[in-house]
């Protein structure tokens, strides 16, 4: 580990740091409740990183500590090799996009975007010229004179993006940026976020509770629970080899099977309906059958009350259909069973 006490000017010494963000045992305590428990993470340059987890898992607190809106109880935050732990938000090289965007309601879109330049004393003509450049970046030029209340959710988000990006951050922090949008717009905006991140070449850290969103966007996906990182890796690594039962359940599409020799995860789309003698299996009664178009989801409940699900190709299902209440057995091949770590 080369990260030791870092002087503020270290980034002058090392011209090209490998990481945009490093968290070193970052902890947040509220009175006695530990919200974030010694989280360590390194985010390489130009990474789209998603912090994923259920509500209360510490993902938002972690983001807010990186941004400087939350005091860090213990540990250090480094941005491009510079220890920013004690710096105010505006001097960290980060910019944050808030969940509800927090656009200033009394200012036009242009003045919202130009706000940070105004605070730095940039003259009006110059700051409006720069703001128009950033409005153009998010394709909102024609909305410059509107007030935020006159915009749709998706348009507000673009203005919020432009307002954050005009500060030329090294890292953009996004707190559930898509949660206020309808499902259709959500998918379109997430494509745009990814495109923008690629184009700017900076790191984005995006907090979400949606595994679809995290899978679609992440270069680095960080699954959190109870203030700790459960697993960090590419979406494919996490989906194919979930580390714990929590991760397997949370990212979905997995059955967690517990046997006397430990727990393992089997993807629901690798399960078939078959007979117990054909190999590893789980038996029970069909609890529900859902037609989903390309696949049919069959939910199973075992005698001991455990749940399992299989995603069957529609032709396979309709060749041998089952009804709720029928006894059934799911089978899979040994190669598809992924052993899980014990513990949290």
């Amino acid at each position, binding site marked *: 580990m080369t990260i030791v006490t870092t002087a503020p000017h270290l980034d002058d010494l090392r011209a090209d740091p490998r990481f945009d963000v490093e968290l070193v045992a970052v902890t947040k305590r509220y009175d006695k409740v530990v919200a974030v428990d010694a989280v360590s993470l390194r985010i390489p340059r130009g990474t789209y990183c998603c912090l994923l987890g259920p509500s209360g898992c510490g993902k938002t607190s972690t983001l807010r500590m990186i*941004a*400087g*809106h939350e005091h860090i109880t213990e540990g250090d935050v480094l941005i491009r090799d510079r220890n920013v732990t004690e710096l*105010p*938000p*505006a001097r960290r090289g*980060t*910019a*944050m996009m*808030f*969940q*509800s965007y*927090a*656009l*200033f*309601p*009394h*200012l*036009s*879109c*242009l*003045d919202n975007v130009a*706000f*940070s330049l*105004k*605070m*730095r004393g940039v003259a009006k003509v110059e700051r409006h010229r720069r703001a128009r450049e950033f409005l153009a970046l998010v394709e909102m030029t024609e909305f*410059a*004179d509107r*007030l935020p209340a006159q915009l749709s959710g998706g348009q507000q988000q673009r203005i919020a993006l432009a*307002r*954050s990006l005009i*500060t030329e951050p090294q890292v953009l922090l996004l707190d559930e940026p898509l949660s206020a949008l309808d499902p259709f717009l959500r998918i379109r905006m997430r494509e745009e976020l990814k495109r923008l991140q690629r184009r700017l070449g900076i790191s984005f850290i995006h907090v979400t509770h949606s595994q679809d969103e995290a899978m679609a966007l992440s270069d680095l996906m960080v699954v959190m629970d109870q203030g700790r990182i459960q697993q960090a890796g590419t979406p494919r690594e996490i989906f194919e080899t979930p580390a714990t039962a929590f991760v397997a359940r949370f990212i979905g599409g997995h059955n967690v099977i517990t046997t006397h020799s430990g727990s393992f995860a089997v993807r629901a789309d690798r399960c078939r309906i078959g007979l117990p003698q054909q190999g590893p299996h789980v038996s029970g009664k069909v609890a529900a059958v859902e037609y989903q178009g390309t696949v049919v989801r069959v939910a199973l409940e075992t005698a001991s009350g455990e749940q399992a699900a299989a995603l069957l190709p529609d032709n396979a299902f309709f060749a041998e259909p089952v009804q709720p209440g029928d006894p059934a057995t799911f089978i899979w091949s040994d190669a598809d069973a992924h052993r899980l770590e014990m513990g949290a």
Partner: protein
Amino acid sequence: MMVGGPSRQGYAGAGRPWTFYALATLFGLFLLFLYGPMLVMYVLSFQGPNGGVTFPMVGFSFVWFEDILKRGQMANIPPAFFRSIELAAVVSLLTVVIAVAAGLGFRRRFPGSGVLFYLAVSSLVMPSLLVGFGIGLGFKALGIEPSLFTSALGAQLTWTLPFGLFAMFAVVNRFNRSYEEAANDLGASPWQRFRYVTLPILLPGIIGVGMGAFTLSYDEYARTTLVIGQRNTLPLEIYALISSATSPTLFAIGTATTAISFLIIGLTLWRVFSIQKRRAGAAA
């Protein structure tokens, strides 16, 4: 359509329930009770020169308005009116400044904040006449002559400050803190954050508090009466007149002061809206 039509029509045909008419009548009576006496007063202030303080109207004239400005019994009314306006303006300004500071400060719990809050608002429940009496005695004990901008100002603040504080809490509660965090994120200093974000966003509520305080001060009687000193405010002057004179002049005073207060409130609101409009337009 064929299925839905008849039943829906049947429902609409049933009309409003009887409770609607009962409550509407009650509300109508309430409005009459609220505004009826004032309307009577406004109408009677235009009573003819030979008319009295009750209906019927004997002609139509402005003589009772002219009466206010004449030398004589009514001579004190115009100066009393201006004193009231001046006092109300100062009370309103002080209430706004203190209530905004307190409202923002009380967002954070601090040791003793509960006690401080109850101390600040308890004067709302104290009998107003006694508050005035106490202040009057206090000034006497200290040997200070009571006057408009000392004892009367203080007495009125005991009334408008707790009110302003309550109203400001409601305003501040609706204020989303992420605006301030966004301002921090964008490099605003604490003063810039207040000047360019917090204050403009809260401004409509602040103006509401200011106008509320102005109105409370403008027609305050009970707290002011014992501490006013030599020169009366308008409500005190009118009260003195009611006990001595009975002519439609009193109504004319009422009509004139009402008109002037509406004018002041209207001008204030108009100015605020035009500032906001200009601000919104400045981006163009």
